[in-house]
């Protein structure tokens, strides 16, 4: 079919799914923050990078391996995110959401610049954990175990988060607090703290993606900037407030990008943006979005 064997097709679909996992996880964090807090978190890519670096330091300075990093890094970076929210973002609460976009954009520059200064640009090595090394021959390709783990783990996290927000009481409080903070506060719920925790949670998701990425992409200060514009496009396509939208779109776009790499690689960088432009023409709120 079209000069590409079915073997190659399956290879690329699988690889696309792997990339899609990262897109899904990152856009999930963004969607949580935007959907719940109306903040466009431009610093998301930078904090994903910090998550990866955190894993590196946990290993090299404290001897804590990957499995510890999976838990500790999101906690540490999430706590840092909470600090940022308290110190900086809270002050912009009543203003045009464009200001929070600009603030987080500035944050991203500061964070990435600092890391660039101290760690240079070649990147630091982080080994794939032994338990996940090697791979299995699936017949049409050799699939490294670690990549399979990435897909499975991301899917689990994504759907757990979706479940948490859409189906539990805590999630219901969060959603209510976004729609009508005054009323929810009147019910005795500490809304400002919820907001801080939600932001921290979104950041924690980004950091988790960073830990997942560390063994397979180099741990580099520029790693966030590389991926952030695609992730934003994913969120816009999925619908900026929609959790499910960003998850599904993330995985789907990863697959589409993978297919483009086979048939027309020069366009693989732009295909996501082209799709975004088309979706915006037909369904401005995004595929799963609620009209604002």
């Amino acid at each position: 079919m079209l000069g590409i064997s079915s073997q190659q097709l399956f290879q690329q679909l699988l690889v696309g799914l792997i990339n899609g996992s990262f897109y899904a996880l990152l856009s999930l964090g963004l969607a949580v923050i935007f959907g719940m807090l109306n903040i466009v978190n431009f610093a998301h890519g930078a904090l994903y990078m910090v998550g990866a670096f955190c894993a590196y330091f946990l290993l090299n300075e404290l001897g804590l391996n990957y499995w510890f990093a999976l838990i500790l890094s999101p906690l540490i970076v999430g706590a840092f995110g909470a600090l940022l929210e308290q110190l900086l973002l809270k002050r912009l609460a009543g203003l045009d959401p464009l200001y929070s976009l600009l603030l987080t954009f500035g944050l991203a520059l500061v964070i990435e610049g600092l890391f660039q200064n101290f760690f240079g640009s070649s990147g630091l090595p982080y080994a794939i954990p032994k338990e996940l090394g090697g791979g299995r021959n699936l017949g049409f390709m050799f699939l490294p175990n670690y990549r399979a783990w990435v897909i499975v783990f991301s899917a689990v996290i994504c759907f757990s988060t979706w479940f948490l927000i859409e189906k539990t009481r805590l999630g219901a409080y969060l959603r209510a607090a976004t729609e009508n903070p005054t009323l929810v506060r009147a019910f005795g719920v500490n809304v400002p703290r919820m907001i801080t925790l939600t932001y921290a949670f979104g950041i924690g998701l980004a950091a988790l993606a960073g830990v997942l990425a560390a063994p397979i992409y180099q741990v580099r200060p520029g790693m966030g900037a590389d991926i952030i514009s695609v992730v934003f496009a994913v969120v816009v396509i999925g619908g900026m407030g929609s959790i499910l939208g960003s998850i599904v779109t993330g995985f789907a776009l990863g697959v589409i990008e993978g297919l483009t790499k086979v048939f027309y690689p020069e366009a693989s960088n732009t295909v996501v943006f082209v799709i975004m432009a088309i979706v915006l023409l037909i369904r401005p709120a995004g595929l799963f979005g609620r009209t604002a």
Partner: protein
Amino acid sequence: MKTMRLSAVIASLLLTTAAFADDKIVKIGELDDQSGLYADQGGPGSVLSVNMAVEDSGLRDKGWTIEVISADHQNKPDIAVGVARQWFDVDKVDAIVGVQNSGVALAVAGVAKEKNGVLLVSGAASSDLTGKACTPNTIHWAYDTYALANGTGKAIVKQGGDSWFFLTADYAFGHALQRDTSAVVEANGGKVVGSANIPLNTPDFSSFLLQAQSSQAKVIGLANSGGDTTNSIKQAHEFGITAGGQRLAALLTFISNVHALGLEVAQGLTFTETFYWDLNDGTRAFAKRFSERMKSHAMPTMVQAGDYSSTLDYLKTLEVMGGNPHDGAKVVARMKELPTDDPLFGKGMIRIDGRKIHPAYLFEVKKPSESKYPWDYYKLLATIPADEAFRPLSQSECPLVKK
């Protein structure tokens, strides 16, 4: 009255001739990517190299005033051109050294020609600097795309790697490297079975690596550099490509890349460089002094060695000339007349097109078990003699070469 006027005229004549006489003042500017993608290959290490060269030339003890300044071009031609203009126009810089990034180097070469300064390039790769973009003011030192292609390509084909698949960074540098290497492969009886153009700064190469794997080419040529190279190598390792028998030819690799990857991942890589710190006593002595003074204690890369060597040669030439005429083309012409011999690159010379000629070496990265001490990364596979390493003048597109 008349004698006074006459003596005033004579005095001013003497003063003006004195102003045009050569002086012993030299100002060198190191222009490089100090903090970004290429900083580890050149950057602050290159500034150190230039300073060491100034010290080693001994000219300060002989009464010369030599000043070294540096700037970060951040991989942007606009910034580089602005700095270069200001340096030549306002700051009285005589020579610019370093300049990683081919696009930047080409832009600065134009400025150097316009302002009649000297440009000593070690960082950039494009062979066009001594080809169609050559000028009487540019000398291209350490390496270029032709040398990389010719060294690695030829050697690997001769060792049996006769089918190639390229992973090419989709911009001018990558295309040039693929073009030059393909030419060499085909000229030596090999064939190119396919290639993939990969956008710059792609974090994930898995789909392209899988294509390379399916092509069953014996050699996978990586026509990219910096982060792209480290990523593609790391992921090739992960997908078991080298374990499966295919060979990786990382066409542009520096010791800083190998250090970043670690030997576990980088072992078996084959590439061409014109300098390695552990090659001989001369290189070792320099490397020891260099790494002691580097904050990161890293060993010098080929670029940093080139910056040292070119600066030293420049200063030696000025000493031979007896003073600095502040005339770039004149100094460069004299540099081309004098043969070179330094502890880092050995014996060589500078050709009419500005190309510095010296031997090149084919290296392979050691297995972790073979490495006995820190930074013991390479083993020498072959030496390519100086007269074969670079593009022959007969094929040159440089207007300075008289046909």
